[in-house]
């Protein structure tokens, strides 16, 4: 009797012991196992904060750039730090005297992942599909009139008006070249048949890049395998590669920054896209972790509603510009991992100048308000909107709220979903009095030109993103002249862009706050990470450049 009674309690203990033994046993078993099988494939796992989106290289204009950029290739690769264009699928290119014709000479011996060769037909097919579909960033190619095949390895683009085709061909979106055989694979009738899009989105790739897509589960993980026949592994004129690049590169969706940090510390992932900035000092002291920082082209900016009182008064806008503690915002909101902005063109981009910074000067700000006719401050609460869920925007907005209170301007800080923030802001073109007073958002470029920033946010024709409703004819004219010069006389274009920024600066159409510094935390077992990150291709880690230490 007695023994049986003990048995009851024992069952529970036995179950627990079995679980613990199984776990520990499994742990040692796997340790043993990993030591035995030596020639295992090398793997690097990169944790992404956001899910992947679509997989169509023609139309994708969102997160999937994170892998499109190395599964597919462009004609040209752009290194913005050195402001250098590096030949990728095109070995050389030239433009005509009138800047209306661009000729690209293609690389020989390049194969797509399906084995078919890269040639003029493939380039024409890809660009035409992207342009005809007209989705995503296809607008970049708006200047193209026709594309001509000169011979099997030469392609000529004819333009309606001069445009910087070299910069567009190296853009992070809408610039990818793929195998024309997708028509057969997708059993489609022509290049723009939606069946091709479905074929891509089912997890197929048709690129020529150093890695090929082997698993597509966009909400959880996307896996890539080294493409051993990639031309670049042996090319001497192409710097972006490493002899010990990983065999497998995996992008894992880990939506929480703290979890990313913990997984990195536990060795589950090798690269974390986002860890809490406040933990970076600890991570830097950890010998197993490296922290890589790089300037980015992502800028946080305030657009001021120039069509609604009191911000329709330039003196009030100027007062606000001088009442914001820029350095404090960078310190508090980004723990110093940003640079106080100077003009809407970010640091590192051509056309940037350090001349456009506003001083933080409360006395000046107050006297400007007096001049504007508001000696006792503004008698109405101004509405500032920002995108919900972004902690850096939140912190910046709150600091601005308390800073402006000091000069007698009360601000209602309201987080909205981007859809909503955008809808409210766009309605301001019809009725500026119903829209927000101040809009806070990020801008980063679709292609690497000051035009992308200045046109989208400040040109009177740009109804989608000019959300301060700024209209200035001189400014618009400067831009339209500058953009046609980009392809031919970049120096002149730069001068014009600086003049245009001077107008924004004097008119205070927008108040640039900071240019983000990207921070990537990674395992020390990786080297070359610095080369694998490029601000022109935001969020991308180019795995072919990574080196794995044994």
């Amino acid at each position, binding site marked *: *009797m*007695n023994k*049986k*009674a*003990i048995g*009851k*309690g024992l069952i*529970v*203990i036995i*179950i*627990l012991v079995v*679980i613990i033994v*199984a*776990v520990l*046993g*499994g*742990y040692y*078993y*796997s340790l043993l*196992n990993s030591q035995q099988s030596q020639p*295992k*494939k090398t*793997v690097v*796992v990169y944790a992404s904060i956001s*899910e992947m989106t679509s997989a169509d290289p023609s139309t994708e*204009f*969102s997160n999937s750039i994170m892998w499109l950029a190395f599964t597919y290739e462009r004609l040209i690769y752009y290194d913005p730090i050195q402001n250098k264009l590096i030949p990728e699928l095109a070995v050389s290119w030239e433009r005509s005297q009138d800047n209306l014709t661009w000729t690209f000479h293609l690389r020989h011996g390049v194969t797509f992942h399906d084995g078919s060769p890269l040639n003029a037909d493939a380039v024409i097919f890809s660009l035409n599909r992207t342009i005809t579909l007209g*989705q*995503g960033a296809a607008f970049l190619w708006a200047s193209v009139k026709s594309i001509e095949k000169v011979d099997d390895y030469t392609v000529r683009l004819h333009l309606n008006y001069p445009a910087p085709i070299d910069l567009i061909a190296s853009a992070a979106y809408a610039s990818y070249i793929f195998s024309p055989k997708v028509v057969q694979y997708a059993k489609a009738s022509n290049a723009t048949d939606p069946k091709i899009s479905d074929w891509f989105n089912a997890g197929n790739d048709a690129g020529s890049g150093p890695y090929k897509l*082997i*698993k597509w589960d966009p*909400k*959880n*993980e996307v*896996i890539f*395998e080294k493409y051993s026949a990639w031309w670049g592994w042996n090319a001497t004129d192409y710097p972006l590669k490493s002899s010990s690049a990983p065999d*497998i590169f*995996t992008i*894992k*969706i*880990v*939506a*929480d920054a*703290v*979890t990313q940090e*913990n*997984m990195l*510390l*536990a060795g*589950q*992932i090798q690269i974390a896209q986002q860890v809490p900035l406040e933990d970076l000092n600890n991570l830097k002291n950890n010998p197993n972790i490296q922290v890589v920082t790089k300037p980015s082209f992502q800028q946080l900016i305030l657009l001021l509603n120039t069509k609604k009182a009191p911000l329709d008064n330039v003196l009030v806008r100027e007062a606000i510009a001088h009442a914001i503690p820029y350095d404090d915002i960078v310190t508090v909101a980004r723990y110093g991992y940003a640079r106080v902005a100077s003009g809407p063109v970010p640091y590192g981009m051509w056309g940037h100048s350090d001349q456009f910074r506003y001083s933080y000067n409360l006395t000046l700000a107050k006297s400007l308000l007096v001049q504007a006719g508001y000696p006792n401050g503004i008698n109405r609460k101004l509405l500032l909107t920002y995108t919900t*869920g972004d902690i850096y925007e939140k912190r910046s907005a709150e600091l601005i709220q308390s800073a402006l209170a000091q000069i007698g301007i009360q601000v209602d800080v309201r987080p909205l*979903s981007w*859809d*909503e923030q*955008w*809808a409210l802001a766009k309605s301001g073109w019809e009725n500026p009095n119903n829209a927000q007073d101040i809009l806070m958002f990020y801008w980063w470029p679709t292609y690497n030109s000051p035009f992308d920033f200045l046109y989208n946010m400040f040109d009177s024709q740009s109804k*989608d993103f000019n959300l301060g409703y700024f209209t200035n004819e001189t400014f618009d004219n400067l831009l339209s002249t500058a953009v046609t010069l980009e392809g031919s006389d970049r120096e002149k274009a730069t001068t014009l862009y600086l003049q245009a920024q001077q107008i924004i600066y004097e008119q205070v159409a927008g108040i640039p706050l900071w240019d983000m510094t990207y921070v990537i935390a990674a395992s020390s077992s990786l080297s070359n990470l610095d080369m694998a990150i490029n601000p022109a291709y935001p969020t991308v880690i180019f795995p072919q450049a990574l080196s794995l230490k044994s």
Partner: protein
Amino acid sequence: MPVSLRYVIKRIFYLFLVVLGVITIVFIATRIIPAHPEFLWAGPHATEEQLQEARNELRLNDPIWVQYVYFIENMLTFNFGISWSSRHPISQDILSALPATLELAISGFIIGILIGLFLGIRAAVKYGSIIDKFVRSLSISGSAIPVFWLALIFQLILAIKLGILPVGYRIDPNAEILEGFQPITGFYTIDTLIEGKFDLFLDVLKRLLMPALVVSVYPLCLTARMTRSLALETLQEDYVRNMRSWGVKDNVIIRKYVIKAVIPPLIASLGLSFGYALVGSFLVEVIFAWNGLGMYVVHALANYDFPAVIISVMTVAIIYSSINTVVDILHAYLDPRIRL
């Protein structure tokens, strides 16, 4: 006497009522929030006509009660609709996410019940001792601690400081590529065994253990608290005192009388315990990068993907109230007083 059919039908009727109530509340809540789903549906560069088309397609121009009638009609015909953000049929999304959540919740539930039962009885037998004090403070503090915080602490200790358990994911990130693993049922503990991949099974078990322990905390505390007080009650009965004075050993008393008295009321609380486990797994899924229903709902909410939110909530409501219905019927079977 068996449980009457009338009682069972009544319980199932209540189940429907509860599910209907839940989806109605969620439906109204999602329609009251000022949101513009047409922007999501039509894409980032949509024209005004495309937006208008999207509004018509999503019936956003109809009054809310018309939308509700359509919605209920769709539910009754098992047409669960398409996710606004992923564009997949929602039923498909949920079926692929559900096994992960159930595997986690069931493991946490079982661990919690077993340990809770054990601790509760120990505490009752050693009433007033250090064990009892420990169990009492554990069951109170345990249910007061938020699980998402606990999850981080577990990660910090077990994975980072001690390095004995992996963090995140249900299976080795590259198992599929390097070892050829393919999910079959979606329950990875079962799938790895079916495929005979024992080392992957151990990997899955290791990855499951930490989140399951975190999830087990609520059911554990509830079970421990209930078991302790029920057992104490029984131990203070006159007949138990008499047996003790006659020299019957404690272990015999526990096995023959205490456990018997504790089990039926405990079964009644199983539904609640499982509910806790389910909620717990929802809250920790994001922290463990566990691709279950909780993660799905978080993404859906962040994207204002309301159909996905409503159907997910409905799924959980159905699971939770079905379990409660079964438990109630079971309880009625065990305890005739309930049937009245």
